Each structure stands twice: as structure tokens, then as C-alpha cells.
């Protein structure tokens, strides 16, 4: 594999590998919680980037797959006593299948129409799950405490969840790189630049977009299961926050859309900034406004994101920063 010899492939991987490793060795609960939030954002932003960055389709519905996949996984975990691993895979698989079905319909829309449709899907999914009795309706589901026993109690279960998330995040980064440097990824980027031209040149646009949508949806489905297992409950208000979709968009934009390192960098920066603002006495009540201002400045003046900007400014770094 050519990828193994590229520094651009290794940089994000090594960062996450070392970071998770330190947390696992340190065994500090607070460090784990902080790293969990960040790694979750990295996984969500990177998987969104596979759709957004490579094909240029702006989706506000990324969190639908987080919610529905999380619900599915959690349902099997709590009601049918599945193990965390199979439940997470089931959550991811359901998200991917759903994305395939939805994608065949919705991906025919372009630009803002697609974006609007995904907002609609998010709201429809939230409203539907609130009324869906097997998923507990508006009150949601709770995990039975005995479910933690097979991981050696509640404490160790949290560590297991973290380890799984860590591996999922690493997997996303690998997939993100491989897609970008494949023939398939080249087709996606052609779609991003000019879909009609790409189709004329032989890119099977509908199939390629649907497949991308499925890949991009698989990850949040898994991450959702892990997140709700960690929390111990799931409810519609938590699972389908339009806000979280937009935050993921912000992270991708901040780091640089269409790059592998960018979404990761964006996710860590955004969460770091948010944590700082939330705890700082001066900005505490204004944290949302400050983040907004920050976002506005990025959108207006550095639209390519941090990594995109560096790549544009220093062509030599292009081989290293993917």
C-alpha cells in the first residue's frame, strides 16, 4: 500500500494514537471524559467531511444518523442485552442502510435544496422517534445497570467505551485518507467541482454519492451508540440536536473541508475553545456569541480553513498535510 509511506497518512493517526494511549495509561476519569468529547467530535467531523468535503453536499442531517444509529444500538443494548460491540455495529449498519435509502431519494437534490431537505429529515426523525413506542417515546430508553456487569462494573465499562471510540476514530481517519486518494475519491471531487461535467466524463454520480452518504453515515451510527451507552440513557431531545450537526459543519469548515487533518484539527480547536469560553468567568455568559463571532471571522476571511490556508500558502507542506 502506497499510503503507508505517506506522512500525510500518518500524522493524524499518530496524534490520535498517542493521545488515546496517554489517556488509557493515565487512567484519569476527567482526562477520559475530556478526550471522549473531543474524539467524538473528531469522528463526527471527519465522517461528515467524507460527504461534505469530498462531494460538496452540505448536510444538516449528519446528526440524524448519530441519533437513529444511537437509538438502534441502545435499543439492542438495553432491551435485548447485546454486547456493546455488536450493538455499535448494528447502529452503524442501520444508519448506513438508512442513508442508502434516503440518499437515493434526497441526493438528487442539489445545493441549498439538499441542505434544506436534510434539515427536514432531522426534524421529521426527531418527531417520529418521540412518538415511537419501542424506542420509549418522548422519555427515551434507559440502560439496565446489570448491562455494565459484563465489562466488570460501571467504571470499567466507561473505559471500554472510550477504547472503542478511540478505535472508531482511528478507523474514520484511515477511511477518510483512503477515500481521498482512491479513484472513487477522485470521482467525488470531480462531482464537487462540477457534477454535470463529472457525469459526462464517466463518473457514476448517483451511485458514488449514495455510497459516500452511506460511508459517512456509518460512523455517527456507531459513535451514537457509544455516546448513549456512556450516558446511560437516550432521549429524542439529546439525539437529534440540529445544533450538533451545525457544530460539526463548523469544525469541518474551521479545519479545512476536503482535507484529512482539517476536520480533526477543527474539532479539537472548536471543543477546546468552547471549553475555555464556558469556564472563563468573563465569557461564560457570552460563550455562544464569542464562538459565533469567531466562526464569522473564519467564514469571511479564511474560507478554506486552517489546513486549506496553510496548504495554499506553503505548497511544500502539501505532501505532509493531507
Amino acid at each position: 500500500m502506497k499510503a503507508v509511506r505517506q506522512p500525510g497518512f500518518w500524522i493524524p493517526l499518530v496524534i490520535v494514537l498517542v493521545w488515546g494511549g496517554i489517556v488509557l495509561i493515565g487512567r484519569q476519569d476527567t482526562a477520559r471524559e475530556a478526550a471522549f468529547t473531543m474524539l467524538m467530535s473528531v469522528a463526527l467531523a471527519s465522517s461528515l467531511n467524507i460527504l461534505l468535503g469530498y462531494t460538496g453536499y452540505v448536510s444538516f442531517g449528519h446528526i440524524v444518523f448519530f441519533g437513529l444509529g444511537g437509538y438502534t444500538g441502545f435499543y439492542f443494548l438495553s432491551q435485548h442485552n447485546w454486547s456493546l460491540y455488536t450493538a455499535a455495529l448494528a447502529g452503524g449498519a442501520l444508519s448506513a442502510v438508512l442513508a442508502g435509502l434516503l440518499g437515493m431519494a434526497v441526493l438528487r437534490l442539489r445545493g441549498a435544496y439538499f441542505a434544506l431537505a436534510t434539515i427536514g429529515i432531522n426534524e421529521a426523525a426527531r418527531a417520529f422517534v418521540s412518538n415511537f413506542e419501542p424506542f420509549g417515546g418522548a422519555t427515551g430508553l434507559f440502560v439496565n445497570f446489570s448491562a455494565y456487569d459484563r465489562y466488570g462494573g460501571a467504571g470499567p465499562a466507561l473505559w471500554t467505551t472510550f477504547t472503542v471510540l478511540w478505535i472508531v476514530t482511528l478507523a474514520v481517519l484511515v477511511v477518510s485518507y483512503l477515500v481521498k486518494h482512491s479513484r472513487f475519491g477522485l470521482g467525488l471531487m470531480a462531482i464537487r467541482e462540477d457534477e454535470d461535467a463529472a457525469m459526462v466524463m464517466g463518473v457514476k454520480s448517483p451511485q458514488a454519492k449514495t455510497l459516500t452518504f452511506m460511508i459517512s453515515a456509518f460512523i455517527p451510527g456507531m459513535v451514537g451508540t457509544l455516546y448513549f451507552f456512556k450516558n446511560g440513557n437516550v432521549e429524542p431531545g439529546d439525539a437529534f440536536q440540529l445544533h450538533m450537526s451545525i457544530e460539526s459543519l463548523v469544525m469541518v469548515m474551521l479545519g479545512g473541508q476536503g482535507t484529512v487533518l482539517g476536520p480533526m484539527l477543527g474539532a479539537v480547536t472548536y471543543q477546546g475553545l468552547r471549553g475555555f469560553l464556558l469556564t472563563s468567568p468573563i465569557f461564560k455568559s457570552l460563550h455562544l456569541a464569542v464562538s459565533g463571532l469567531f466562526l464569522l471571522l473564519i467564514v469571511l476571511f479564511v474560507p478554506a480553513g486552517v489546513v486549506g490556508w496553510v496548504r495554499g500558502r506553503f505548497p511544500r507542506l502539501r505532501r505532509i498535510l493531507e
Partner: protein
Amino acid sequence: MLDQLLSSLTDGLLLGFVYGLAAMGLSLIWGVMTVINLAHGPVIALGMFGTYLLFIKGGWNPYAALLAVAGVGLLFGFLIYVVAVHRVLNAPHLSTLLATFAVNMILIGVGTAVFSTSPHNIDFPLGSLEVGPIAVPGTRLVAALGAILFTAALYVFLYFTRAGKAIRAVANNRKAAELMGIHSSRVLALSFGIGTMLAAVAGGLISTFFPFTILSGGPYELKSFVICVLGGLGNPLGALLGGLLLGGLEGLIPTFMPVSWVPVVEFGLFVLVLLVKPSGLLGAK
């Protein structure tokens, strides 16, 4: 049963006029510059608070306050356009979406710090009008009338004034309009201002009969998306019909199934219309 149906349908339709007014602002902005204004919700909420402050602190009549809110809304729209939208107008969609969302965050952030997220309400009852079995609260009736009035004014403005014609020309073809000597930047700023104004006025009207918080704009923003798509994105007058349709649905659905299913039907319909006929049920130009 029939009485209940009639009265809830009337309620829904009256509310529909106000929904339509809010959606009209969004639709106008989309029609003229193909921007989805994600700052629409907070502007609606600010319209509510503007009316509230003038009523409580200034002792104004809420309906007089609405006119002031409209004026401020127009200026505020100019400001948003100049600061956040103008620079990214020709960039990919993601940029304008994120720029307007950034404005959304700033407004919500500052609004939360100033007003907190506790509910407020305007206590200005106008009695109620009873026609047979149906009792209509006066505030809703006046709100619907206000929405119709603003729609009529918008129609007159767009079709019979020079500035309005310029807006339609720019919406139709910006380059051609520029070649004909229209300053497109000014027209775009004006359209954004009017769109923002309509949202603020709709918020003000809603605040006369529903309690509200700084976050209340969100649901109306989502409803506006649905309405715009029903009425045809970019067709401001279609938005009023879309609003009536949505209001009517909201009135009708609860008589057949639990209220909590209303959003499922609404957003399901929304996605369906987008898929089958993206130009809207009523068709945009």
C-alpha cells in the same frame, strides 16, 4: 366534533397568516440572492423582545411598537447583510449558510446574556369575537389582519414602486439588472433588510398571543422553511398560501391524531415536496 374541528381550523388558519409573513421574509431573501438565512429564527425572537420592551418599559401600545420594530428590523437587516453576507455572496452555499448561522449564534448568545432564557409574555388582551360556536381571540384576529396588511404592502412595494421593481429585476437576473444601471449591492441590502423586517414583525405579532423566550424563534424558522418549500422557494407571495396551508394542517391534524404527530406530518410533507416538486407546490418562477 364539527364545532371543535371548525374552531381549531380557524385558529390554525389565523396563525397561518402570521407563519406566512415570517416565511415571506425568508423566501424573499432566497429569491433575490439564493441565501438561506439561518439567522431568521433569532430575528423573529428579537422582534418579540422589541415589542415586549416597548410595551413593558416604554408603555407603548404593542401594535404601535410593531411599526418601530419594523423600522429597526429593516436597519438591522442592512447591518447583517453588510457585515456577514455581502462578502460571501458568491462563495459556495456552505459559506453563506455558516455566515448566517454565525449571526444566529451571536444573536442567541447576546440575547441569552441579556434576557436569560426564561419566558416572557405581553399581557394585552383584546377580548374575543364569537361567531356561532367559534370564539376567536382578538389578538389572533388582529395579528392575522396585520399579516395581511404587511403582505399587501409588500405586494404593492414589489410591483408598483421603482425600488420594488429593481428587487424583482435583480432576483430575475443580477447581471442583466446591473447592466441596466441598477446598483445590485444596494438592492440586495434592501431585500435582506425587508426580509429581516418581515421576520421581526411576524415575531412581534406572535408575541401578542404566545409566551416566548429568546430561543422561541427556532421553531418558527423551521416552519418557515417548510412554508417556503410548500409555497415555492423564492416566491414571497406564495409563502402566504404556504403559511395558510401549514396553519390549516396544524389546526386539522390534532382532531385526527395526537398533537405530537404534527411535526412528523409537517416535516415528512416537507421532504416529500422537496423530492417530488422542489419548485414548490405553487411553483416558483
